[in-house]
């Protein structure tokens, strides 16, 4: 299908974009790369009256780096991450994730911030950036606030982004030289949204271990016992299997996994965790 009628505006600054969103009094949507929004508009799942195109704002494409972290503007594309056009805090993890995200013709236009702001449960970045302990910088009429990615996504397509806020940038801590990561996505056909996805980051130098499950019927799910087992340093396939089972049991009531999902999540989480130990 084709999108219904709407108005389109391309503001020249983030401040103007925020003003348009809060002042227009109409049902509006920010459009970054448009790779989910336009698809949803074509399917008439989304029918905004006003589309505010923020995709080209230089402020949202800015990239910077300090000794401890990398800041990526929300409109940095998946392809830019895949191709190493922006600094990599993750020692290859983010490029690997980007290379398997949808298809190249989507990656050239789709953005990190758009993926986070939509927070599809099966999308890569909410889960990966949560595992990397990244933070998002949200800009609104009253200034900016910083929210950890692990708290930003609150449910299926639900986030802490207020209606008049824009996702400005993502701050990602740099992994230390000894850090290890594991990533595995399961889908029936390459490029599809995941049926299960697990990201495991172990950085003993920074005292950090995070195992996070995606496509888990809601927000990315932190596997707490699994993370602790990895950080304790004596994890093996057997102890990880037990820790993952306990984590999934603890989440079972809230996430309503069916038998297939539970088995799939267990094996995907285990294989991602074993990549860290390999």
């Amino acid at each position, binding site marked *: *299908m*084709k*999108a*219904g*009628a*709407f*108005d*389109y505006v*391309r503001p020249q600054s983030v401040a103007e974009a925020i003003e348009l969103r809060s002042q227009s009094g109409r049902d509006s949507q920010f*459009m970054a790369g*448009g*790779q989910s929004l*336009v*698809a949803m508009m*074509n*399917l008439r799942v989304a029918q905004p009256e006003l*589309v505010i*195109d923020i*995709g080209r704002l230089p402020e949202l494409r800015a990239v910077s780096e300090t000794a401890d972290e990398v800041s990526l503007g929300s409109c940095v594309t998946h*392809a830019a991450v895949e191709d190493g056009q922006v600094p990599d805090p993750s020692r290859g993890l983010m490029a690997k994730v980007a290379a398997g995200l*949808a*298809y*190249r*013709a*989507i990656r*050239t*236009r789709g953005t990190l911030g758009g993926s986070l702001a939509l927070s599809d449960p099966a999308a890569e970045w909410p889960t990966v950036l949560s595992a990397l302990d990244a933070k998002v910088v949200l800009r609104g009429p009253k200034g900016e606030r910083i929210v950890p990615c692990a708290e930003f996504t609150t449910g299926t397509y639900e986030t802490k982004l207020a209606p008049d806020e824009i996702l400005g940038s993502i701050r990602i801590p740099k992994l230390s030289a000894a850090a290890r990561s594991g990533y595995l996505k399961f889908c029936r*056909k*390459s*490029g599809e949204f995941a049926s299960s996805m697990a990201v495991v980051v172990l950085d003993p130098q920074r005292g950090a271990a995070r195992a996070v499950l995606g496509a888990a019927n809601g927000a990315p799910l932190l596997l707490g016992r699994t993370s602790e087992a990895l950080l304790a340093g004596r994890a093996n396939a057997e102890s990880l299997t037990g820790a993952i089972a306990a984590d999934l049991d603890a989440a079972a009531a809230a996430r309503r996994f069916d038998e297939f999902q539970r088995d799939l999540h267990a094996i995907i989480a285990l294989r991602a965790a074993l990549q860290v130990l390999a």
Partner: protein
Amino acid sequence: MTQVRLTVNGKPVADDVPARLSLADFLRERRNLTGTHLGCEHGVCGACTVLVDGEPARACLMLAVACEGRDVRTIEGLENDKIVAALRQAFKEHHGLQCGFCTPAMLITARDLISRKRAGSDGEIRKGLSGNICRCTGYTNIVTAVGHAAKAVASGGGE
């Protein structure tokens, strides 16, 4: 209506378009460039893939109005492209198409794979083409054709 100015196949173009007009419909209905096909209109089938500023993009997921200042190239504008010429020859020799609906976008996607050196093995080609659906061939002949075109390009048959 909003005026949009862009370059299509090397020629500057200006037109007044409604915001809801996709780049694909703009190309097909305003420019009569019907080599850009529309299958699913939600980014899954890949038939509308064109080059925007040199990179492959889904023309069904781009608004024409958002293409202000962009350089768009469709299959019609790749007539003299050396990699596409090698692909055309290989698709012909290896029977890489039946009905032809997916073919323009297959060529554009395969050209991008070859130019980024991502067509080195059947597995790599299959992964690279996974966003372009063909309902006739079963893909085998397409993958073979792209592999041959990649070799032809690497050995000087292309760019």
